[in-house]
């Protein structure tokens, strides 16, 4: 499992709708903030990169110091799944993104969920963290 990993889902309106620190490293507030700043900055690159490929998984798109940003862009709503990590486990990240995407679609199917709003389901959170343990 990666020591540092910050996973975020960004809605098409550039609003984070889900955020989770899934790394094994001890949680520090300033580090978590830095992670989000890096992810936010990487949106600029994802935005350009998403149109250059038909693949949803964009691999590592950006990095700052030792931290790498991998991104996965859903086809339908341009929702971006972004992971900040310090590991190089490309396949694991890809599988992680795919599984989370599936979870996200299930959430979207929930009629009480308003697309674009924050995902507050604890079930979703538990599942994502389990997937992170499995793949990262």
């Amino acid at each position, binding site marked *: 499992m990666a020591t540092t990993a910050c996973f975020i889902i960004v809605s098409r309106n*550039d609003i984070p709708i889900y955020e989770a620190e899934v790394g094994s490293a001890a949680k520090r507030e300033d580090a978590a903030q830095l992670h*989000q700043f890096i992810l*936010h*900055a990487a949106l*600029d690159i994802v935005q350009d990169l998403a149109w250059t490929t038909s693949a949803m998984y964009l691999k590592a798109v950006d990095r700052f110091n030792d931290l790498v940003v991998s991104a996965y862009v859903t086809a339908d709503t341009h929702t971006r799944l972004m992971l900040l990590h310090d590991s190089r486990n490309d396949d694991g990240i890809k599988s992680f993104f795919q599984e989370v995407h599936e979870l996200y679609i299930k959430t979207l199917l929930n009629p009480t969920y308003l697309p*674009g*709003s924050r995902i507050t389901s604890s079930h979703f959170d538990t599942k994502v963290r389990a997937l992170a343990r499995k793949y990262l």
Partner: protein
Amino acid sequence: MEPDVSIETSSMIRVAVVPIGHVPPVLLRDYHSMLLRHQTIPLSAISSFYTEHQKSPFAHQPWDSGSLRFKFVLGGAPPSPWEDFQSNRKILAVIGICHCPSSPDLDSVIDQFETACRGYSASLVERCFAFCPGDSQLEDGSKKGGNLMLFPPADRATQEFHLQTMMQDIAASLLMKFEKWVLKAEPAGTIVKTPLDSQTTLNSEEVIKAKKRRLGRAQKTMGDYCLLAGSPVDANLHYTTALELARLTGDFFWYAGALEGSVCALLIDRMGQKDAAVEEEVRYRYSSVILHYRKSFIQEHAQRVSPLTFELEATLKLARFLCRRELAKEVVELLTNAADGAKSLIDASDRLVLYVEIARLYGTLGYQRKAAFFSRQVAQLYLQQDNRLAAISAMQVLAMTTKAYRVQSKASISEDSPGKKETGSSVAEGGKMLHQSVVSLFESQWSTLQMVVLREILLSAVRAGDPLAAWGAAARLLRSYYPLITPAGQNGLAIALSNSADRLPSGTRCADPALPFIRLYSFPLHSSQMDIVKRNHAREDWWAGAANTGPFIYTPFSKGEPSNSSKQELIWIVGEPVQILVELANPCGFDLMVDSIYLSVPSGNFDAFPVTVNLPPNSSKVVTLSGIPTSVGPVTIPGCTVHCFGVITEHLFKDVDNLLLGATQGLVLSDPFRCCGSARLKNISVPSISVVPPLPLLVSRVVGGDGAIILHEGEIRDIWISLANAGTVPVEQVHVSLSGKHQDSVLSIASETLKSALPLRPGAEVTIPVTLKAWRIVLADADAATGRSASVKHSKDGNSPTLLIHYAGPLPNAGDPSTNKSVVPPGRRLVVPLQICVLQGLSFVKARLLSMEIPAQVGENLPKPVHIDNSSTEGAVGTPNKMDRLVKIDPFRGSWGLRFLELELSNPTEVVFEISVSVQLEDSSHEHSLSVDRDATEYGCPKTRIDRDCSARVLIPLEHFKLPVLDDSFFVKDNQADGTVGSKSSSFSERNTKAELNASIKNLISRIKVRWQSGRNSSGELNIKDAVQVALQTSVMDILLPDPLTFCFRLSRTSPGTANIDLPEESNGQVASKGSVLAHEMTPMEVMVRNNTKELIKMSLSVACRDVAGENCVECAKATVLCSGVLCGITMEVPPLEEIKHSFSLYFLVPGEYSMTAAAMIEDANDILRARARTKSSDEPIFCRGPPYHVRVVGTA
């Protein structure tokens, strides 16, 4: 590292610009900006100042197209350790700037300038520009000569021209110096070293190596000078040589430097033309440059000095060169690599420069978020320095990131895009906002980052000592992210706000509102007391036309009109206070003290009254804000001005509306009003308000108290309403009308009184009486709740009628040309609700029809049928106790046909009622002379008192309603309505009959009035019409119509025996009345038959006499009465409306009571009679029987 580097930097001559003496900063900046215009001096322009002393080493100098470039360094710079390596880092010229008025002594200026120049050892040319010299200084200075250049006072154009000449002179001087330097350098083999070279003494091998390298380095330096001198071709030649030599000697650092120079030479040569080939060449060469800088890294020097900065600079140069949207990917790659180098940089300021440059390049690329990220890194580096200047820098850098993080101050938003702001407001005003545009408002709201950035701004602002910025940041933080901040944190922010405010002058305004949240609660339209009605000029009823356009809710014609009904319009009046309700919310965990809040009106024609509000934690409050319009025109109210936490801020309703919209979309963290427990409100649109000139204002008051008028059911009472003109304009037109429920309960309004009081001057008052009659409480209500509570509630439901008083001031002068029809001042409407509270009064239980059957006694006089008893009643008509007569029945008259309507009334209330029944008799003289005395008389019954919780019965005699004649015309309706004669009715007109019957019943009923009185001043009428009608329905015919024949008996006087009869009676003085009959005497009697119809009736009359037991005692076996004359089968014809007598005599054998009845068999009965008799078949004989008459026979047996 140096900021702002680019490939062309190598060709720029660095010039220090130093202030000499005191130069005011504004002027220094001004002079510097003048210099900046001369950054590029074309070679063609300096040829006049240039003199070729010896053969120029710049053989290929492009005199016609080339130029010298300057880079002005304001304030100068310390010498760089790398200036041997890159000659452009040397300060090659010094320009002193002197402001003569502040430094009068030119000698000291020259001294100071020379001192300043001493710091720049590499400088080749020095000049001191002295601006604005006085006359004495001009004289003095012209003698001084040398480096001091005086700029005589002149207009700006002249000065600039002067400066240009000076700069060209400097350029020429520099060019000549460069030539000299290059010529000197070549043979001498100048020693050039860099910090990268070993500082320690060299061993022999290294000395040899260094000697070899020296040639190459010299070539490179000469190339640098060629570049500075604006001769790229010469530079390129030198660089090529240098490259060759550096490669041979393995001098990678200088190789890279020479390569960089050659790229610069290439670009200068191409004069900025960028084609793909050049770009490819630059990219290729620069990748080599970067590679060689990296190669030159020497581990042993790593602690002291590193070529890394050059590598990074080269990377940035390349990135800047390539920085275009199409090459974004490449640039990003370069910048990412550059950012990676940051952690290897030894010097913190190098890192700062690096991040600044990266941020700038990302910004140029359009990657705002990336730029913001690196800007924030810069700010963090500044904040690490922990001094005030650094904090100011940090604050300014962070302020630049706010746009990318969407936490801008409102001030900056409005500066940035005034257009955008306007569109936003117009959308908001439209009321309905598209989902998409709502979403766009909340786009990129990344709360975690926003909070961090705002907190850093707050921190840096506090450190930098900028209280306003600190206040703004804390306000934004608190307002937008209170749900994410702990109560302690919220408290801390509140303290930060107050601390910042303490350092601000009072009355400071800030663009960013803090708390509370303010939304429009309601926009009270005019109260009904002061409603404004558009005046329709053309119509008499001016209040009517303006509002409605017809009976339809929607008409296609009104659609196109500009005044769409969806947009509310509100009219305010100059000088009349208005109120607006707003709701404030404090979702935070501290007490919020709003020092003052008032409506903000940019249009300026409104005086708003401030109020102070205290909001406890997590609470919301609805506050009334008021003000007075001061002048005519439109009023816009976009929000409120709030003085809270020591700073004045503007709170716009639109912002909160958007926030609430976002909350419903799940885009915003929380709805501040909802978390304060306030209910969701409908979106209230701000109506368009216009202010009109003063209008009259009527104020109403009910005389005797404003409370509800308490009436019992059916009560009639007068109330007085006083109207006063509280405005400043006289009332000239008034119209009173009614609306609401139970309008019929208002019997009369003295609108004439009101009209006669016009014009009502300001301050004048008029009182008008209004007569009310209480309505009946609906039965269901009376059942549901007993008595008062129900009825009070009932009246509050708006059951009461209201008076609408439309009034208006004077019309504009018709002759005045300046006023046209469109500016007719509007009228107003005063709504006076008559708060009538109807209490349950007497309740009617039931009505019954009673009939009385008391036979009359046969007397000497003819007992008068009721409807023809004029003579006997004549005297009694006038007496007040006329009803007594009905009750105390004349025994000779009997009351066979008498019917009573019995009303049972109960009194469930708590007061005593007195009932009086009156029957109004119709004037029927036109019908028959016999009933002449009944016109317009009333029968007054004695009052009946009903105590509380008691019930009573009231009898109403109905005998007076009988018609005198059984008339065909009348009978038609009667017959028809009577269902039993359906078969007979075919000959009659079937139409209208039912209605006519009902009308006649109604007519009858309406004449019966049951009045009540309770206490001193409440009286009314019982509404029992329906009940009476039901009671009368079945037997109405019997009441209204007379029998076709009436029979009367009397003792005949004409016979000789009469005297006998009378005598004993009188002499005996017996109790028996004069009508008594003695036994054993022949008693002559008459039966009178009256035809009540208008046709001749043929009949056979028979008279019967019965004893008490009801046995016929004339013709039976044990007859006790003997008779003479015919008693049976007397055939007679009675002409219409006439009487016929039939005489006979009886001889009573036994004293006692006998009853006489007359009966007739009508022959050849017509339809009317049949209908009256309700016969079933046409051939059935009609039998008509009169009432029994009593005969009392006295005497001994």
